């Protein structure tokens, strides 16, 4: 997994609540057997007409945001399905940080497995960053995971909370499976006790 420590980039505003995984990556792109290549279809139905032409209004089609690396969004971002294609599509587009007042659980969890930092902030802080991100090419935001701070374009700082274990995994790009396999003896012990419940 790619490490995530610091990020300075353009923040794009997506001022919508309940952005669901069908919006992030519609089902017709889930037929792939790979993780890569989904960025071109990120937000496909909001980004392109049925004929495949860009919809100029959509934030990621606007010149200032075509290289956005951060997304600022409304409540309950990522609700819906468990498809990890959603974080894969964000990452493949170049977005590795999403800031919102709240996230759906499965999506939130999936982000950390892919080197994406989802940041939960109080609504007033999100509102401030949403305003900042509406400044187009001047909407540069810096994120420092180590110190858990966000610096806006005016230099104002906002701090955020993140689970210590997940933070460490992101900072070091640690592979969960490798970490769990270090506990193989504990899994062996647990499975040995399962013999008492043959039906399991």
């Amino acid at each position, binding site marked *: 997994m790619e490490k995530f420590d610091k990020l300075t980039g353009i923040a794009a505003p997506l001022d919508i609540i309940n952005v669901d995984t*069908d919006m992030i990556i519609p089902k017709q792109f889930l037929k792939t*057997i790979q*993780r890569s290549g989904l960025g071109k279809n990120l937000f496909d139905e909001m980004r392109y007409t049925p004929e495949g032409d860009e919809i100029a209004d959509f934030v990621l089609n606007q010149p200032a945001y075509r290289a956005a690396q951060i997304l600022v969004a409304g409540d309950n971002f990522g609700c819906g399905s468990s498809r*990890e294609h959603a974080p894969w599509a964000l990452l493949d587009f170049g977005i590795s940080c999403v800031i919102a007042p709240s996230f759906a659980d499965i999506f939130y969890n999936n982000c950390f497995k892919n080197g994406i930092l989802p940041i939960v902030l109080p609504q007033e802080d999100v509102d401030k960053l949403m305003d900042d991100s509406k400044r187009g090419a001047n909407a540069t935001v810096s994120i420092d995971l180590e110190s858990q701070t966000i610096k806006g374009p005016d230099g104002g700082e906002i701090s955020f909370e993140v689970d210590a274990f997940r933070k460490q995994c992101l900072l070091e790009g640690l592979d969960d499976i490798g970490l*769990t396999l270090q506990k193989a003896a504990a899994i062996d012990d647990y*499975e040995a006790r399962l013999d008492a419940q043959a*039906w399991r």
Partner: protein
Amino acid sequence: MTGTTLYDKIWDAHLVAADADGNSLLYIDRHLVHEVTSPQAFEGLRMAGRSPRAPHKTLAVADHNIPTTNRAGGLAAIDDPESKLQIETLENNCAEFGIDYLPMDDIRQGIVHVAGPEQGFTLPGLTIVCGDSHTSTHGAFGALAHGIGTSEVEHVLATQTLIQGKAKNFRINVVGDAPAHVTAKDIALAIIGEIGTAGGTGYVLEYAGEAIEALSMEGRMTLCNMSIEAGARAGLVAPDAKTFEFLKDRPRAPKGADWEAAVAYWQTLKSDEGAVFDKEITINAADLPPLVTWGTSPQDVIAVDGHVPDPSAIADEGRRKATERALDYMGLSAGTPMQEVAIDRVFIGSCTNSRIEDLRAAAAIAKTGKVAASVNAMVVPGSGLVKQQAEEEGLDKIFIAAGFDWREPGCSMCLAMNADKLAPGERCASTSNRNFEGRQGRGGRTHLVSPEMAAAAALAGHFVDIRDLKAEG
């Protein structure tokens, strides 16, 4: 004195290791796999030179983009090359890694969340995961069941565990008796309407109360299935005699002395008297009407005899904007009576409502008339076994005589990955679980309803209050 909740009990029984930071390693008893969220996980195992730790604890079946027609030709006859490749990849991965697989032409093939319980793969007190958010369905048996991402699918295959933070406890008491024609689907929609689509985020829901006890296992599956639409990864119903009766003699259920030992243990699986819940609400089932969604979030519910809401009456800016956006997408005007909303399509199926009881309820309505000329309606059974049973009961003939399409099992138009989808602007009465923008096809407009409400809408060409229909009949 405080007690423990059902969720706490299952959690504690599966704890392999607990870290000081609150993250735990949880043992996973059962893992369901389908074609869409697994290829990258198997590829990950292959690249790391890892193999499944306990392959017999995983069961695989293709459901998401399998065709619901033209099944006789097998894999070779699937028109869409990408769908075909994905199903072929699943078959090959199962063969390579020694995983049990229910093939396309097997009578047991079906939607993972229908096939798992049918096989007795789903049992009370277990931890069950699948790369699909509707894994919450299995909570109907008192199993801790939730959706996971593909990285976690790989993690479970490699280690038979998951790294988890503990959720909070939320009990939803549904008291009283549900009136006639108020189904598990209506109860689920009512709960989501009440707590909102993020109301359950961070919680495991436990459904309790006499209206829940009164539900059949099919009904409990419908209810738990929709937990994720309230933001909760998992929902639970404490197992009881109905649960045991459903499971007894299923192919993978324990037998003989193992069965007796299992039931003895399962009977302990309930929240203790005095157990503390972080959150609790009570809903009176007797007050509930049949419901229909008007918008693009499952929380956008209204009684079938109600009207499309007026966004200008909503104070909260985010909600108002979302409502305006939803009405625009849905092509609806504020104040329109829901029963005047005409539909083009009907979909009866999905992991929410494709089991035998659902089909019986829909057929009971279907036999009272014919599908309206302006409507295209389809019924997609949840599994080959459901289809077989429905045909034994003659339900297929009722549907076909009324003008419904009778299809092969799969996820079908719930998520429209296969050829079954809405055209832009088409409006559908659907027994599925999500009414998101584009969910059933780009530009498609989805209204979530119960199977009998869907069947009634098919006949009338618009939504109807099923209670009136019965009174007339």
